[in-house]
């Protein structure tokens, strides 16, 4: 199968946590639930200090169209509102909840959220609007990392014809095994959720793209999708295969226009985790309170895939996975390619947290930056067909006109260029600076 142009092959390091089954550790003593966990408008708190809340109870909401409500993720008592800086740099209000009484934890939690029967009969008779509304009420957002509110995606603007729903099971980011384990252990809710999403957007065809380095997940998904009409596709392993535009290009041969969305080529893309959560929201009415987080890396004593309440602090997460190794040097929210380094371990897990990767000094050993000799490797590997070195050097020189001439906004910050650069220039960071400058101006 032909893939997209460019891309790189970093060692995937998925064996660290790939064999660890999804487990739910005891609930933490306190969770810090951010009131903004998605792309869009922040929620307002609807609870008072010292109010008792139940798991799944609404604690924050917003009237803005692009937003998703926030629910209590443990049973307990609301503490005084405070602030936190999320790994992506957003400074948001946080509701801490002190856990009190019975909690949903351990094997029961896994069974409750992912286990049981997920019937696929009659799903395509459901009302599309009801599906989208259920997603909204459950506070569902894309669980692949971008955290775009799902209900918004499931209500394509009038006049758009969506013919294909693509389910993203690539998980091309090295280290992370969240989606892989989900597909291996609970393929049924993924398939059911995919069918629901397709019904909501009116897509006749459902395609699941899974990188061919996950044969077990592929087999499990094939078995679960048997007879449902959902097509499972094994696609070449290459980073960033899981990026929307690249996935659509590989699966369907369609190019999403620059600055456009998949729906402009008749496609809606959802992550496998989102699909599973959608199935739960529609079929069982459960709000999005937990998610699977891969805690991995050479800096973690025993890498695991954990089903944890949202708002769990990274420090607790790391402790659940055996703690930091002595040579741990950098804690990354997400995978090593597109993840953000975190310095403050009180940072909470959000709906978009796919994993926590702890890298050691040995992983990070990097040489000093040298001069760019215009070797063009960044150009060769850029999956968006850009010229990263020009962009980065233009940013350094403050030549903002040049950054736009070289289409800085087409960059999705996948990191292929910086991965490949022999001169070790922080290309992605410089490009982000350039974008920030443009957005500020």
């Amino acid at each position, binding site marked *: 199968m032909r893939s997209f142009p460019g891309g790189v092959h970093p060692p995937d390091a998925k064996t660290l946590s790939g064999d660890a089954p999804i487990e739910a550790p005891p609930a933490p003593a306190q969770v810090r639930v951010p009131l903004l966990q998605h792309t869009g408008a922040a929620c307002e708190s609807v609870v008072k200090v010292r109010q008792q809340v139940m798991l799944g109870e609404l604690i924050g909401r917003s009237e803005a169209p692009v937003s998703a409500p926030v629910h209590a993720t443990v049973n307990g008592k609301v503490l005084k509102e405070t602030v936190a800086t999320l790994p992506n740099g957003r400074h948001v209000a946080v509701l801490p909840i002190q856990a009190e009484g019975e909690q949903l934890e351990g094997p029961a939690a896994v069974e409750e959220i992912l286990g049981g029967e997920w019937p696929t009969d009659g799903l395509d008779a459901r009302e599309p609007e009801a599906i989208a509304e259920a997603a909204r009420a459950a506070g569902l957002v894309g669980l692949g990392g971008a955290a775009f509110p799902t209900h918004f995606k499931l209500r394509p603007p009038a006049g758009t014809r969506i013919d294909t729903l693509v389910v993203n099971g690539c998980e091309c980011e090295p280290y992370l095994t969240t989606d892989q384990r989900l597909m291996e252990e609970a393929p049924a809710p993924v398939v059911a959720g995919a069918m629901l999403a397709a019904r909501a957007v009116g897509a006749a065809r459902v395609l699941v793209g899974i990188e061919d380095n996950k044969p077990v997940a592929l087999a499990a998904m094939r078995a679960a999708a048997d007879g449902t009409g959902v097509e499972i596709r094994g696609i070449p392993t290459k980073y960033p295969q899981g990026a929307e535009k690249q996935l659509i290009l590989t699966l369907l041969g369609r190019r999403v226009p620059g600055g456009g969305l998949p729906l402009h080529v008749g496609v809606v893309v959802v992550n496998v985790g989102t699909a599973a959560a959608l199935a739960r929201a529609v079929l069982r009415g459960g709000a999005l309170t937990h998610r699977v987080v891969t805690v991995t890396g050479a800096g973690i004593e025993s890498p695991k895939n954990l089903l944890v309440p949202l708002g769990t602090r990274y420090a607790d997460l790391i402790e659940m996975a055996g703690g930091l190794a002595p040579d741990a040097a950098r804690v990354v929210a997400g995978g090593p390619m597109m993840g953000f380094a975190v310095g403050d371990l009180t940072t909470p897990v959000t709906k978009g947290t796919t994993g926590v990767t702890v890298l050691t000094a040995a992983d990070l050993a990097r040489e000093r930056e040298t001069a760019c000799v215009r070797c063009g490797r960044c150009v060769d590997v850029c999956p968006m067909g850009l010229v990263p070195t020009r962009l980065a*050097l*233009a940013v*350094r*020189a403050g*030549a903002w006109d*040049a950054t736009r001439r070289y289409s800085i906004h087409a960059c999705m910050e996948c990191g292929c260029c910086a991965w490949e650069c022999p001169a070790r220039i922080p290309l992605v960071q410089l490009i982000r600076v350039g974008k920030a400058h443009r957005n500020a101006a």
Partner: protein
Amino acid sequence: METLASLLLIALGAALINNFVLTYFVGICPFLGVSKRIDLALGMGLAVTFVISVAALLSWTLTEFVLRPGALVPTAVWNAVAPAAGDAAGDAAGAAGAATVDLSVLSYIVYIFVIASSVQFVEMYVRRFFPPLYKSFGIFLPLITTNCAILFACLEILKRVEAREWGLVESLTLAVFGGVGFTLAIVLMAGIREELELADVPKALAGAPITLITAALLALAFMGFVGMGANVEKALVEQPPISAERPTSPPDSGR
């Protein structure tokens, strides 16, 4: 064929082999000053090409019909009308034997006058009737009045016309391709300078010095065309194949 060949030679010579800027150093000021951005450089180059053509046309006309010795009052007429004066001025007219009115002493004044006036006229015209064009192009026009490239082209034409070597077509060819050569040089320079915006040039060399050094290297690169005129002429005009035509002296790589 021969005319075409000689025109080609003039064109090649003006644009590449003896580039106005890189060989004759005329038009240096805009070459250094307006070569920071490619679009501005291109505008400047086109403006110069246009003005140089207009000036060449005017100066050729003036030279041919007014300034050239014997132009205003044909020699025969002069001799017929003022035969007595012929003796008196005989020394000056010298060996040519034909005494006549020579106004070429006025040429510099007339040329600069014509250039300045026509530039001003064009500027006013463009500003009035093509405001968008004026915004992108007209701003260069005042700069061009004092651009030596124009006067230089006029002087070259004067020399050839006085010697009765060139007609209007040759003069215009020189002007247009001189302008093209100027445009080529200034656009190349602008491209390089835009690139240098991103470079970390030593402070002492930043600005004019590095531009001059770049111009030196550009001129060095253009030296590759040295001798092309003669060889092209040989190939075009004298027709026999190169192999049969042995140069009398082996080409010395340095000259």
